[in-house]
């Protein structure tokens, strides 16, 4: 567990943690605002912004768990008993996002099949000319 910090040392650690979390959060927000054109009118590629923001968030999570929650100072066995099960989630994330993508392509496949047999279909995701808007949209 390490030694007990004095009030002064504790305050120093707390301020350092505060600054790190604050700065990383502000960087994330800055990326979102700049990259989406709210400030400066630039549009950065999403495929670059999203991984960067994910990595910054993971860093924040690591910092909170390791320093604020002291898991970094616990015994190796204890840290492993908590971190290893969480690591399983990485596969869960990949698998379920993959699954969601499959739902999307299946649904769009059904729609394009419907168009082949002559039924009218709507592209739900498109901005449409106002005269072509469907009367009812189903988000199934």
């Amino acid at each position, binding site marked *: *567990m390490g030694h007990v*910090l004095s*009030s002064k040392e*504790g*305050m120093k*650690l*707390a*301020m350092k*943690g*505060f600054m790190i*979390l604050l700065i990383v*959060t502000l960087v*994330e*927000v800055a*990326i*979102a605002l700049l990259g*989406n*054109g*709210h400030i400066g009118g630039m549009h950065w590629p999403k495929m670059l912004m999203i991984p960067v*923001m*994910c990595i910054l*968030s993971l860093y924040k*999570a690591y910092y*909170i*768990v390791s320093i*604020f*929650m002291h*898991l970094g100072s*616990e*015994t190796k*066995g*204890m840290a492993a008993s*908590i971190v290893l*099960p*969480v690591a399983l*989630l990485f596969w*869960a994330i990949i698998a*379920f*996002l993959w*699954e*969601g993508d499959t*739902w*999307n392509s299946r649904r*769009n496949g059904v729609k394009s099949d419907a168009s082949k047999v002559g039924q009218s279909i*709507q*592209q*739900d*995701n498109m*901005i*449409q*000319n*106002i*005269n072509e*808007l*469907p*009367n*009812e*949209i*189903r*988000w199934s």
Partner: protein
Amino acid sequence: MAHDTAIDVENKEHDGHKQEVKSDVWQGGESPFKSSYGKLMMWYFLLSDAFTFAGFLIAYGALRFSMDAWPVPDHVFSTAPFGLENSPLIFVTFMTFVLIVSSVTVLRAVQEGKLENQGGVVKWLVITILGGAVFLGCQAWEWTKLIAGEGTTIYNNPFSSQLEEGSYITFERAKELNEQNGMGLVEKTMTVNVHTDNGHTTEELSYLAKPNPKFVSAEATPNEVEYTQLYFEKIDHHYFHRHGNDAGKTYVGDADKGSFKVKDPYLIAYHEGNYFPGAYEVDNQLKGEPMGPKSFGTLFFFITGFHGFHVFSGLIILLVIAVNSWSGFYGSRKNGYEMVEKVGLYWHFVDLVWVFVFLVFYLI
């Protein structure tokens, strides 16, 4: 096991130190993780809670991937108090800031607890409680804006995936575009009953309607069947409860239910404080988008609500522990201020979850 222990004890007598350690471990009384039972179990509770949140967030990801269109968070969460309209992310950044501060103050409380400094523990716990309360208040404000102002509920999501090249327009601009491009939309007014907190009133509501003969049916009166699409200026969520007298009842509401048929194409547009559902402008053309995926509202309110519930229960626990610390209860306890450490773990976890909620709902 008993047999092994017996052998170990025997070996201890013969072989000395190495065997002695082994036998003591198996006889208990020594914690291999060098942590107390309470803290370890708090960690395992947090682990299981992390899986619950991960389940929710992964469901969010899977559903979002399965949709062609998803609301752009910068447009959904762009209101802030003190008249700040169109300021995406500002308010939620403030909420995140508050949560970071309260996470740091609870860290200070834990540190003071290890020093057995009662006054310090109580002081930092009280600041933490204030921070948590401010966060919950902000969340309540945000939910109120989303539900009552924008009309996003667990059943309904007016935000579609506003595409980048489009810009939201006002009702007046829509009328201009209509004339300019000869779109044939007709401006009409209707008297509507508005349900407000102070009772019912009526007001005149302007709208644009698109004439279409396709929907003529036997039982319909001429007024009801002339227009396939109606575009209203959205004022507030009471929009959904308006009864139309002049407009086609099929589109404004069923007489018995008195509610707007939310599946009709319509888009909330807000620009400089003006709303116009059903339209925005792309290259001088009035374009529209249908309603966005319902699962957005459902997921947002369930996940942020579940997180808010954690904040709330954390506040109650913090309050109890602050009172106990203040009364000197922990000072006389054998394990000292360990309860402060445990609630500290819980409170840091709440902050940890918010890191990911913030990432997936607001940033991406």
